[in-house]
């Protein structure tokens, strides 16, 4: 436990100083993995398949908001679908566009929920996402997760079917009926994708349980929430797979659940009551001076004395607490 406390203290210290660089690095790594997975699963031969293009786009994503990553992932998927077949482009592109429109309509601030859901599903550890966002996110994170789930299964299904279909070069020689039949097969397969519906229900149920449990007024609410979420995930997945007669990868479900639970407990140790304010560099002026201010956050302990010292700072929700011990560096 002391080791985790030391890690947490180091994390607080380095994040406050280098938070912007850490955020950029996290976005770069996420974007690179996402683009590589999309290209690997669909298997097309567009320009997005080139590793250098992926690196450049990941660098672009590192400095821009996370919603840009989602749009670029959509464009990458479209180009890969186009290089496979017309039918893949039509069905895959249509479904992904509809998902994106609904995402921007309802959950445009939940980019990380959507991105991490897609990555969690790629790496067979989807349980991490609803537990993490149930602990630290808001209600609209559910919409982001739902969008990510549909995005992932569309990529997977169309990628599998498109690989066995007519390719672009041959499409010109195929009849309209063949393309129509291919379209119908793809749409039917996608709509009857029972695993997608099961995963959607399970992730939302786990999120709801964790979200409600961690807000309860009881000791160790986070631990109870993590345990409840893990159990619910395991039970629903096993029951769902058996009822729908799907192929069960029991090992993957168990391993994924164990990893998710471990990560969730680690998150609880690192982020519960964490003060993750960064150093703020500010510029403003009045009638007499220009001010270049570097505001360094103070670290407070979580005890009764620090409750009073907490007063005076403005937290992320804009609520001010009264504090008489701030230091301003200019």
């Amino acid at each position: 436990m002391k080791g985790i406390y030391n890690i947490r203290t180091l994390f607080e210290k380095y994040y406050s100083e280098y938070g912007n660089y850490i955020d950029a690095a996290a976005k770069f790594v996420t974007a690179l993995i996402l683009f590589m997975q999309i290209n690997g699963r669909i298997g097309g031969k567009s320009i997005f398949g080139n590793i250098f293009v992926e690196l450049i786009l990941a660098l672009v994503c590192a400095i821009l908001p996370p919603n840009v990553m989602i749009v670029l992932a959509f464009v990458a998927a479209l180009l890969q679908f186009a290089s496979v077949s017309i039918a893949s482009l039509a069905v895959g592109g249509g479904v992904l566009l509809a998902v994106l429109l609904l995402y921007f309509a309802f959950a445009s601030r939940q980019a990380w929920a959507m991105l991490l859901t897609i990555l969690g599903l790629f790496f067979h550890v989807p349980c991490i996402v609803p537990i993490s966002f149930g602990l630290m996110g808001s209600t609209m994170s559910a919409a982001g997760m739902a969008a990510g789930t549909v995005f992932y299964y569309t990529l997977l299904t169309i990628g599998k079917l498109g690989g066995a279909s007519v390719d672009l070069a041959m499409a010109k020689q195929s009849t309209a009926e063949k393309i129509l039949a291919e379209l119908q097969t793809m749409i039917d397969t996608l709509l009857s994708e029972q695993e997608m519906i099961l995963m959607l229900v399970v992730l939302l149920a786990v999120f709801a349980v964790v979200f409600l449990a961690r807000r309860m007024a009881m000791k160790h609410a986070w631990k109870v929430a993590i345990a409840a979420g893990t159990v619910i995930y395991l039970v629903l997945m096993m029951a769902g797979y058996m009822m729908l007669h799907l192929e069960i990868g029991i090992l993957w479900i168990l391993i994924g659940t164990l990893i998710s639970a471990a990560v969730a407990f680690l998150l609880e140790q690192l982020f519960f009551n964490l003060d993750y304010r960064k150093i703020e560099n500010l510029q403003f002026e009045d009638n007499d001076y220009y001010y270049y201010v570097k505001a360094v956050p103070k670290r407070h302990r979580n005890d009764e004395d620090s409750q009073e010292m907490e007063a005076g700072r403005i937290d992320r929700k804009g609520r001010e607490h009264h504090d008489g011990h701030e230091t301003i560096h200019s």
Partner: protein
Amino acid sequence: MLNKKKIRTMSKIAVMEKHHGEELQKAREYYRSDYVAVQLLKNACYLTVAYMIGLLLWGVANMDMLIEKLNRMQIKGILTGVIVSYLLCMTAGLLLTYVITMKRYFYGQELFRHYQVLLQRLEDEDDIEILEVTDLRRKK
């Protein structure tokens, strides 16, 4: 001479503007009805396009059934189904939009109230400074 209290207050205002500038601007510039109306209009467009894509894909998947109905001149039935499903989707979507937008609006208003408290404090500190200068002049 630097007024530390004033610098502290201005720093807090600057941090708030940096992290919540968009919400503060919207709370300042929009009435509730306008804010909600803009969001409803934007989402109505998104939902309509998403619905049309879904309808197209559904039409392709059920092409045989559609052609059969068209051959039997059951156009009215098809149109009724399309319109009813569109209205149901739009109602559900716009209701959800309304709830989310109202929640965001009230959050923005709460932020703006805190922002105004800080501005008032800044104005009060300016008054104190001015009063001090006046007192010094009187003493001379």
